[in-house]
């Protein structure tokens, strides 16, 4: 099993994001040009929510946004007003990430087999850095949302150790 083409990943993320916003928030964020990076480095208040993939394809899906965007996302999802990034806002961002990444995963499974996902981990702060270790960069798919932006990041590569385990099992069985 090979890696998924970047343009396929970008297309699936945009579709999954559009579906979520249309269905539950009555609006659609504007897609911006995608790019690649292996880091998140933020010196402003921001939220970074990460979900792990496991199986024959492994990696992570995440959402990164400024605090102002997190409050807007929570307001749209929960139909309330949020003056600060509190637990309810972080939970809403986690669920937005879960639905975008979860539906991306389901679309990928149609062609690449079952992929497991973890529950979301949310990081919130003013000065932090995160790095994607391994062979691949994140494919970053940004969106303009009102007067802010958020981006969805995907890193998904074949798990070579899973292939190796499968070969060992085949050898043992034969």
């Amino acid at each position: 099993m090979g890696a998924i083409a970047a343009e396929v990943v970008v297309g699936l993320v945009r579709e999954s994001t559009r579906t979520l916003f249309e269905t539950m928030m009555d609006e659609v964020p504007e897609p911006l040009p995608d790019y690649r990076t292996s880091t998140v480095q933020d010196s402003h208040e921001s939220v970074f929510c990460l979900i792990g993939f496991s199986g024959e394809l492994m990696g992570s899906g995440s959402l990164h946004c400024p605090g102002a965007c997190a409050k807007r996302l929570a307001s749209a999802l929960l139909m309330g007003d949020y003056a600060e990034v509190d637990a309810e806002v972080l939970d809403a961002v986690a669920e937005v990430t879960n639905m975008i990444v979860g539906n991306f995963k389901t679309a990928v499974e149609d062609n690449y087999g079952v992929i497991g996902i973890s529950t979301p981990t949310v990081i919130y702060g003013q000065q932090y850095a995160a790095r994607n270790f391994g062979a691949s960069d994140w494919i970053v798919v940004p969106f303009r949302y009102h007067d802010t932006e958020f981006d969805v990041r995907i890193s998904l590569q074949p798990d070579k150790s899973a292939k190796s385990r499968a070969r060992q099992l085949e050898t043992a069985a034969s």
Partner: protein
Amino acid sequence: MASNVLIVDDSAAIRKILARVLQQTEVVTGSIYEAGDGQQALEVLRQNPVALVLSDINMPNMDGIEFLREMRANANWQNVPVLMITTEGSQAKVLEAVQAGASGYVRKPFTADQIKEKLTSLI
């Protein structure tokens, strides 16, 4: 018409949205209970009569499929309708939920109307 309803999801945001949808219907005539995972949900069921359950699948500690199996193995809860509401959309996962005893299945993201329609067909 159901009296008490239990919502099981590790996301407080989804529990809040579903509670609001339930309150817009005539389905709930009693209390809406909430649980963050399957283990908590079983505790709620042991202490309260519940006529309808809405449950996620991917949750920590005890996931929705295991929770469903535990429910169906208990004579008191065998016939309680359980609507699964989840991002899991693969055929394999839907089949697993149905085999475990799910009464219905809705994929996230969902609209309030989709949930109401499913509830009407279950109650």
